[in-house]
């Protein structure tokens, strides 16, 4: 009995609290930058595609809703030939972002992607790729990697020595 009265009293007190409910969509909620919403593919500071088609996001995805195919340009730079996310399966867990070694795939604070047709929730690369670095500015994977794919010469990276001269006998 006491418990019932207490509950009613608490509910009554809520009349005087600040309202948590907002009038969406007239009023928008402010989402933090790290909110895990729609997935995008970003570009590096030099405007190149960040995704290198390593398949780690696809492997990390618990619902297997990411499919891609890696290919290479004439310099050997690897990028996805197609990159498909089936958002009708996506659970916005953010594992893909965690797995991504190049900061390419990022979850952004946008959740407004309702569709009447499920098929429209299948996003291809052209729907995913944005012209921005997203949350992690300044990183270009190919500058840190050892391969030469036209971004930097062998040995020209910050953390690299000049290529070994194999004819050199000096210690």
């Amino acid at each position: 009995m006491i418990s019932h009265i207490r509950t009613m009293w608490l509910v009554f007190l809520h009349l005087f609290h600040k309202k948590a409910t907002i009038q969406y969509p007239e009023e928008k909620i402010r989402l933090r930058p790290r909110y895990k919403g729609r997935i995008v593919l970003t570009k590096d500071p030099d405007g190149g595609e960040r995704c290198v088609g390593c398949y780690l996001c696809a492997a990390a995805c618990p619902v297997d809703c990411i499919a891609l195919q890696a290919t290479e340009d004439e310099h050997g730079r690897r990028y996805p030939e197609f990159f498909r996310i089936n958002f009708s399966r996506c659970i916005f867990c953010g594992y893909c972002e965690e797995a991504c070694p190049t900061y390419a795939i990022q979850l952004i604070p946008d959740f407004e992607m309702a569709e009447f047709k499920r098929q429209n929730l299948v996003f291809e690369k052209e729907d995913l790729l944005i012209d921005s670095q997203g949350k992690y500015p300044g990183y270009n994977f190919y500058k840190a990697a050892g391969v030469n794919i036209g971004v930097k010469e062998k040995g020209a990276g910050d953390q690299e020595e000049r290529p070994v001269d194999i004819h050199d006998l000096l210690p």
Partner: protein
Amino acid sequence: MPTIYIDNKPYEVKAGKNLLETCLTLGLDLPYFCWHPALGSVGACRQCAITLFKDKEDTQGRIVMSCMEPVKEGACISVSNATAKAFRGQVIEWLMTNHPHDCPVCDEGGCCHLQDMTVMTGHNYRRYQYKKRTYLNQYLGPLLNHEMNRCIQCYRCVRFYKDYAGGEDLNVFAAHHHVYFGREKDGILQSPFSGNLVEVCPTGVFTDKTLKQHYTRKWDLTAAPSVCQHCSLGCNTTAGERYGKIRSITNRYNGAVNGYFLCDRGRFGYEFVNDENRITQPLIRNRVPEAVDEQSLMDHLKLLLTQSRTLIGIGSSRASVESNFALRQLVGSENFYQGVSLDEAALGKLIASILQSGAVHTPSLKEMEQADAVLVLGEDIWNTAPIMALSVRQAVMNSAAANALQQTSIAGWHDAAVRELVQDNKGFLANAGLTASPLDDISTCTLHATPHDIAVMGFAIAHAIHPGLPEVPQLNNELAAKAAQIAKALQQAKRPLIISGPSCYNEAMIKAAFDIAGALNTGERKAMLSYVLPACNSMTLAMMQAPSFEKSIDRINDNTVVIILEQDLYRSIPPAKANAFFNRCKNLIVLDSLHNGTTEKAQVLIPAATMAEADGTLINNEGRAQRYYQVFVPTTGMVKESWKWFWQMRSLQTSSGNGLELHPNDWLTKLEKTLPQFNGISRVSYPPEFRIHGQAIPREPHRYSGRTAMLANLAVSEPKPLQDNDSPLSFTMEGYPNRPPASLIPFFWAPGWNSIQSVNKYQQETGGALSGGDPGIRLLEQKTGTPTAYFTDIPEALPAPRNKWLLLPAYHIFGSDELSAYSAAIRELCPEPYIGLSTQDTAELGITDGKNITLVAEGEEYTYPLKIQEHLCNGIVLLPAGLPGMPALTWGSWATIAPSLKNNAV
């Protein structure tokens, strides 16, 4: 068996092994790099450190390299001891100081031994703050990609390439922490076994360039156990598919057949499956539209097959046992032929009858490696059966090592020490061939002679071993001396091996090889006799005794229906003869997977599945039946296994279409009943309803990605998973998660072992047979101790016709095989057509190297540039066999040669 204590637990282990092998055999996870089960130990990488205690009371112990330490009775070791663990962690941390930040773009990632070992030792954060060493890469040809930055200096590549495979153009350069593994300068790697570097290299220095064109991680491949289709040895492979295309072929360990290695033709020759030239729709010619659906095809076939016409079936040496047998059942045994020339069919029949007689033992490739004297009689095994050449090389090296080790107590796995001891000594190999072969470098006795001379020498050897056999009359001195030398060496051996084959189109040579092996087969000496065959399933047709289709020509009239199975007849007989054959065929049904000259002539063309889309069985040159499994179901077109098509046709004939389908195993059971020589073949695989704890065996790893997105562009609702009614494998990632039986291993993977090195988890002992026995059923076993009859018909020396040359094929590892030449990378390595003559013949003809000359054989003219063959004997003209775009020739016939009048203006 000695008992050793690992972390205070007693284990019974095999004597004579090292501790690393032993630990791996026991299932313990111990990281290593430089050791490889086929290459032995050198103790270079310091990664497999363990603690060895003096006795049970010792708690301090000392660090030793487990790969360099032999098993000793009562030895106490610790793998998980803190000191050893810290040591291994430090070693890998050092190795990683220079390893580039490449994994996302490295093709090795996901099947990388270095990744696995790094995770295994627990090294996860980089503490080293300084710069990384870099190297420039080299161009190594169309097969391999070089990325030297990733090297961890384990030396496995050069140990495989130089020491194991005998390659000369890959080496280690420079000194200290600058060592560089590569060629002297950019260029194509010359060894036909270079592809194995992809698997031998523990990291991504050497990666598969053909995979790079359509890169897929190992965890994303739908894979199935397959068998190589590109020569008669039947090496086991794993074929991986993604998005309806075959992406890569990797080695599938079979302790008795290919072991750890494949040749480049087998590894890179898979792209015919993805070729644009594939036949995907049934065609009925001379009607509009030609492409028809299955119902119209069946209606048409019903008319063709049921109007009491004679059916002629031409079996194929590159189609499965099931397909050939289904065709034989459809047309009747008396109407079943094979699509090879008369000569080739006769040679195949001879070889099969010799091996079926059971008088001598025909060895597996593993047994060949144990041979202590080898005689190669006329077969260019380097090009017709490359992995056999690799096995012969091991036999030569192993017997030299065994000789050297008799004086010392060093164990055989001490690779560097054994090589030091052996120096340049070699075991006995006698290589008799038409012209030079890379095997000549390691052979004790080399002979370059005509097929007749080689055969005669063979008979002379047989006579020298067994004086009861007829003597060769008028043997020239050189041959007599060689025969005596070879006979002596073979008699001293305990496990002599004789190899021959049909590539010289010489029957006597095959008979002589049998005589030698039979004569050697006495008492404790166990001789081995191996024949190479022209194609992956030639043995089946030879065992079925199918005659050459040339014999069927007279039987063909307007009322016959000819069914050609998966082959291009233009590759077996010259165009004029083939055209004459096709002109007689008014009703021609062809089943094939790729368009070619024969399919153009077909009235009805039916799309047949390649090895990747089919289940089937192949019988290799040792009579080992091996099943290959369907890798994927093609989404477009109507591609089906030929045996399924034949079953449908049979239902049309008998109007019994009750919907009952026959599985490969049902076909094999029927085959056993019909032809008793195939007894046992139905045990080659598990029935389709085989399950482990109620579960099928998944073709996809549990990390397979993209399931709900791969086809989402077509329809967002995922389709029902595909069913496989013909095998115990499933097309999904769901199923039995542990190790399947040896013949059903779709891919090698074990927890913590993502790379192909995980094969050690599937073996009974490291480097030994797969758990449960190596796959394959041998159909040709030795029945008697010594042969009851020998061949005594020594060919007489016929003087060569004046100004005529014996026309013989020169085989090329890249180019002579039909299907592998569809791969762009292999095609790049194919030689250009040429006419090969000896130096002396060329001088007498007065023509110069590189100039076009014309060869006339059987009334046909062929003009190609001349290539002088320094080691070729006189009186023989060699033309490359089976190159893409080159017509078939009448091998073994006499040809005339004239300097070409055309195109010589250069």
